[in-house]
């Protein structure tokens, strides 16, 4: 800086600024392992969200129980299982994602049930009445869907006429994550909860039913914007797609429980 300029107000400020920046500057970089890990987490989340959005056109329903079959509204529940070869994959579906769960199916000892075992880590995507969901699974995760069911080998879907899902994260397992009706639910170890659809009074505006989630044990958490909502054991909540929070219902847990289902379980094992 020339002598004349340094005498001007702007010149004096510039001199100070140079001193200030020189003396105080130190480069800041994030740890490479953090940067890489965050990108990986973002990619995984991106896949779950993108597939869930694409599945909204699938209309499926889920029955609420076995007891009053005549009075209950029968709904079919479809699981979209990915991991097929590209040739077997239906058109207009995303490319097979190796991170999505591969499953095998076997007869279950529970009457009228089919047992499905995940053989790879990933997600099982679900849709019901136009609402999308996803359940994260690990190798060894298995679920039993009770009721009449059939597997379509053509597009690798499992259709069930009656049934519910119980999610059981054992105390030594990794936390699970579920995307249901547009809500992200974190399920810590030691938590059991059920998900079912119930007709009539719990229909959201527009006639779309809201899944009912009952916490049998433990606690789950949903995060909306900056707020975390803790869902407590013994309570039943409706997850309306158009409402940010889970709405607690005054339904006794026993009524919402799987009392008429011998065993329906999603058991998380492994790390």
């Amino acid at each position, binding site marked *: 800086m020339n002598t004349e300029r340094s005498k001007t107000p702007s010149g004096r*400020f510039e001199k100070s600024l140079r001193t200030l920046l020189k003396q105080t500057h130190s480069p800041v970089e994030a740890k490479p392992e953090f940067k890489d890990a965050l990108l990986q987490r973002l990619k995984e989340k991106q896949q779950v969200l993108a597939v869930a959005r694409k599945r909204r056109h699938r209309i499926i329903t889920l029955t609420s129980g076995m007891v009053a079959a005549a009075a209950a509204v029968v709904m079919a529940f479809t699981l979209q299982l990915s991991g097929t070869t590209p040739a077997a994959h239906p058109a207009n579906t995303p490319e097979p994602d190796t991170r999505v769960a591969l499953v095998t199916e076997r007869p279950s000892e529970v009457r009228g049930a089919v047992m499905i075992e995940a053989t790879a880590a990933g997600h099982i995507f679900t849709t019901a009445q136009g609402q999308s969901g996803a359940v994260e699974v690990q190798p060894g995760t298995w679920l039993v869907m009770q009721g009449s069911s059939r597997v379509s080998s053509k597009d690798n879907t499992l259709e069930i006429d009656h049934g519910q899902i119980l999610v059981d994260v054992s105390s030594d397992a990794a936390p699970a994550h579920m995307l249901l009706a547009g809500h992200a639910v974190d399920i810590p170890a030691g938590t059991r909860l059920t998900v079912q659809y119930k007709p009539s009074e719990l229909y959201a505006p527009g006639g779309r039913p809201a899944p009912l989630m009952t916490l049998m044990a433990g606690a789950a958490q949903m995060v909306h914007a900056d707020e975390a909502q803790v869902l407590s054991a013994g309570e039943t909540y409706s997850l309306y797609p158009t409402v940010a929070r889970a709405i607690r219902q005054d339904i006794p847990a026993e009524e919402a429980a799987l009392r008429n289902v011998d065993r329906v379980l999603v058991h998380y094992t492994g790390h």
Partner: protein
Amino acid sequence: MQVISLQDRKESAQLLVKIAAGDEHALEQFYERYFSRVYRYVYYRVGADHQHAEEVVNDTFMEALDKAGHYDPERGSIEAWLITLSRNRIRSNNASMGRQNDYERSWSMVDGELDAFFADLDEGNLPEAALINEDLARLVGAALTGLPEEYAKILEMKYIRDLPVKDIADALKRTEKAIESQLTRARAAFRDVFRSMASDVA
């Protein structure tokens, strides 16, 4: 100041549309383009703490992914949008943890007499020894990262790396006159940001 035109924003917004549709390559591009900027911005505002910065940056990008389909280019650049998301995260984290605003603490450590500090700044009287101060370094870092990126970059090139204007012009493919003008604006912007941080505290 380099204006990010609405057209530029709309083109950038297409990146978010692709991300919302599941385009992994678009996500990688977005991440590479904005990660460092957001990280540095957050770092200086959470007490120069990497662990805290990582939490906020993680939450910011997760939230950005959730809201990728809702970004509106009419309301501002993606950079501004991300900065706003991170600022809200910092604020809510501070509130929930009972943390004091980092500026308040740092200013109280630097100098109780803010007017005197600015007088020294304006008069070119900053004693070098007084500048070896972590809190001041954080405030300067926070001010720099609070500037539009092109301003922070040009100040760094000129005053930290001591590059002549000609070299800066060559590197940025602009004329020397344009660089001189931008330096003037960048210096003024720095002063304004620095002062506004002080007035947030006062």
